[in-house]
């Protein structure tokens, strides 16, 4: 209908439900979404943690030693375990559910199905992790 709707005698008010503040608690999938979004906070924390590490290494062996001790404190370990869980959630959702749908990768004129892209991402992820381990552990 091209006209604007008027409330008249014959046109009682429609019911307009409000979205509750905690809408994301109402469905499992919404909760997962919010957790996924919050993983970014832990990504940021990881950056901070890494920068502290870099700083410690730059300041010499002694500072590096103190950093290692500090990071082994139970509170820190707990914090980083939580952070790791979120970062893994981020990696899994980002590499295996989100980006495969967001990308249109073509091979010989055909669009690759999302599952194939997901497998590709898995391989890339394993290579990147191996590289990191190699560099760090020698």
């Amino acid at each position, binding site marked *: 209908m091209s006209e604007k709707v008027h409330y008249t005698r014959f046109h009682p008010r429609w019911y307009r439900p409000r*979205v509750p*503040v905690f809408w*994301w608690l109402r469905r499992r999938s919404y909760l997962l979404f*919010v957790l996924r*979004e*919050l993983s*970014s*906070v832990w*990504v*940021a924390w*990881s*950056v*901070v*943690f*890494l*920068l502290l*590490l*870099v*700083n410690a*290494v*730059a300041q*010499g*062996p002694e500072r*590096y*030693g103190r950093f*290692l001790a500090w*990071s*082994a404190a139970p509170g*820190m*370990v707990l914090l*980083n*375990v939580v*952070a*790791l869980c979120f*970062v*893994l959630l*981020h*990696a899994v959702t*980002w*590499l295996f559910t*989100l*980006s495969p749908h967001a990308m249109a990768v073509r091979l010989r004129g055909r669009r690759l199905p999302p599952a194939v892209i997901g497998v590709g991402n898995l391989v*890339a*992820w394993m290579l*990147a*992790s191996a590289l*990191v*381990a190699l*560099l*760090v*552990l*020698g």
Partner: protein
Amino acid sequence: MARRPVEPFLWLLFSAGGVLSALLIPALLFLFGVAFPLGWMSPPDHGRLTAVLGHPVTRVVLLGLCVLALFHWAHRFRYALHHGLQLRHLERAISLACYGGALAGSAVAGYLLLSAW
């Protein structure tokens, strides 16, 4: 309709940060945040780390990771507050804090990774 010319760039930073952090951070955090502290593996000695970090490529990559991951956080966190808590009326303040934070963090990272060596 309001077009926000910076939005595409913020999104590109967000996406690049998402990919890079997904690829690199789990391994790094696992090693330095969990495996070494818990003694599952022994941490590399200082000399090795200085050698690795001494290479400019490592530092540039790390800087890229830090900057992009911070913008990733800024963008995502901004929307999380925006939608998750319905703080739409605080939109400007939130954007300022998030992207401002990312900028500041990037500056620190730049200093630590480029000038301090």
